[in-house]
């Protein structure tokens, strides 16, 4: 059986998104070049059980935000399927068919300064999904509902009369959350919701999100580059590298016993608060360009355990404890245990 739970709310299979980044036709003809394709997401599969949080982590450019945008259908996938509560989203062609799903899936964006219309009052921003989906007809009830939503995110109903610029970053992110909740969704896609915020405000938002999940039974797809935030909030964690999911599993499992060399490398790079003065192991090298990814396993140029097979052949995910890992070394059992790898 594949997947962490019996009835996943979201089931993603072999999701692929290519972007055409070719130079203009005339340049291509003159230089005798073909098309250039950026493989932003290259065959990603995972499940998210209802009421849980699945996080995608990885360095910038690994494709995690593209997955988020594919799931809410801001992008059309090149191939693969996204099944939401048993409905295959790729079969929904018209607006009308999409509508019932649209309300149930909402997104929270990274930048609370850019994602709220500065010329709208908060009450109108939060009411927009209610009006779009015609959930409530009369205006007085809409205002009441908006007040409720604002209270749910620990703002006051009176804040509805204000404009976004009157709020701090953390409060704006609360407004985004209230707007996302307005259409009674059961699934929220959160793309780096706290990375523009200070730590004390980040703690407020993370606590709020956890509380809402408990109270409303929400399911989250959480995108972040901050491993500590991911550890705190997730039930399941997927690690992405250059468009591929290299490892996923239960959060605590991935963090306690990371199997893929890339996951180990990322975890070793986290600054440690408790052991002051400890030398952090620097990760060698940088993420290569996704336009010309390395052959075989994308990670092999930075991997200390790479051999000829890694350079030639792309690894297939194999099941491990609570998830899957895509690594020839793990499959062949030739990677040292984590304890010995840190000692070395």
């Amino acid at each position, binding site marked *: 059986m594949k997947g962490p739970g019996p009835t996943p709310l979201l089931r993603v299979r072999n999701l692929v998104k290519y972007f055409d980044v070719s130079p203009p036709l005339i340049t291509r003809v003159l230089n005798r070049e073909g098309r250039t394709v950026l493989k932003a997401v290259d065959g990603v599969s995972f499940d998210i059980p209802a009421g849980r949080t699945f996080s995608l982590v990885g360095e910038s450019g690994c494709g995690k935000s593209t997955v988020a945008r594919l799931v809410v259908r801001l992008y059309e996938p090149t191939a693969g399927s996204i099944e939401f509560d048993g409905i295959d989203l790729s079969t929904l062609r018209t607006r009308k068919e999409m509508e019932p799903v649209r309300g149930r899936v909402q997104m929270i964006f990274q930048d609370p300064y850019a994602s709220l219309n500065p010329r709208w009052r908060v009450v109108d921003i939060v009411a927009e999904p209610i009006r779009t989906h015609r959930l409530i007809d009369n205006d007085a009830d809409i205002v009441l509902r908006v007040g409720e939503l604002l209270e749910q995110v620990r703002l006051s109903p009176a804040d509805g009369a204000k404009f976004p610029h009157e709020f701090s970053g953390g409060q704006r992110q609360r407004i985004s959350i209230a707007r996302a909740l307005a259409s009674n969704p059961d699934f929220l896609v959160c793309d780096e919701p706290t990375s523009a915020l200070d730590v004390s405000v980040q*703690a407020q938002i993370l606590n709020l999100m956890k509380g809402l999940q408990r109270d409303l039974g929400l399911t989250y797809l959480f995108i972040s580059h901050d491993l500590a935030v991911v550890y705190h909030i997730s039930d399941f964690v997927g690690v992405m590298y250059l468009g591929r999911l290299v490892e996923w599993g239960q959060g605590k499992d991935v963090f306690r016993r990371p199997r893929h060399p890339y996951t180990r490398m990322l975890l070793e790079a986290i600054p440690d608060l408790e052991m002051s003065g400890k030398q952090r192991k*620097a990760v060698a090298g940088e993420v290569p360009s996704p336009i010309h990814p390395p052959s075989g396993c994308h990670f092999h140029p930075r991997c200390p355990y790479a051999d000829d097979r890694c350079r030639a052949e792309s690894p297939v995910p194999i099941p491990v404890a609570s998830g899957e890992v895509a690594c020839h070394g793990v499959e062949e059992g030739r990677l040292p245990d984590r304890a010995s790898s840190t000692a070395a």
Partner: protein
Amino acid sequence: MNDRERRPLLEVENLRVEFPTRRGTLVAVDDVSFHIDEGEVLGVVGESGAGKSLTGAAIIGLLEPPGRIASGQVVLDGRRIDNLSYEQMRRIRGREIGMVFQDPLTSLNPLYTVGRQLVETLQTHTDLGDDEARERAIALLSEVGIPSPRVRIDQYPHQFSGGMRQRVVIALALCINPRLIIADEPTTALDVSIQAQIIVLLKRLCRDHGAAVMLITHDMGVIAETADRVAVMYAGRLAEIGAVDQVINHAKHPYTHGLMGSIPVVGHDADELVQIEGTMPRLTAIPSGCAFNPRCPEAFEHCRAARPDLIAVEDSQVACWLYDPSVERAVSLE
């Protein structure tokens, strides 16, 4: 360590930075005093708007008008530098003080090759000839870990990745062997794996060159593994300053305490993070008394009435009435 032998390279005394506006004067940095010894890394942490970057800018004389140093003084190696003319200050910047800013793309000129920028900086402050300066620039690039520096030196900033660009900026800051380096969020724009490389590099270079470093960041993890001492700023004032281990593991000030608790940590299972209610006050509305009192779980009457000054508690200095024995309701230290 041999702290006794160290002497302060930089001394900042009662620094106050003001912004005169039509509606009155805003005090962005208020009565801040600290020192950095030779070869020491002082971390300065705080949330956005705490005044940490302005403190750095005031030290190097790069405050944007109308911001100005209203009182206090900055002493570098026994010499007062806050009252120098623009031209005198310009000579000190680069030769004695190096700077590393947050965004490596905006601190490099996109129209010049990396080599030209390094050579220009070198020749401004030394009398190296063209060839010598170029050789020195290549040596610097290889010192900061840029592969094939002979090729890279003739490339433009856009041909470098973020981490590589930050290395170039560090090379620029180090090229005259400054005594003091002010690094303002040097790793914030970078991925965690690249961040580690840059931190290791900064630390090694400081050790090799014996420079003092003021590291401004909001990332406690970076501070924990880099700094010798930490200063915590809140609303333009120092809340707490002390050895890194003291401040991080035995925070005294309720703000530091909350700040540390609000950071999620891998391996720490907590259902809820510690939450400091509210947000930092705006400069136009700094509360009376201790600026932290409206958010402080331990605040009492005296906190609203009077501003605490830094007092020595164990090995740290803390600005909090809880630790002042002359004030009633003070906690006893055990």
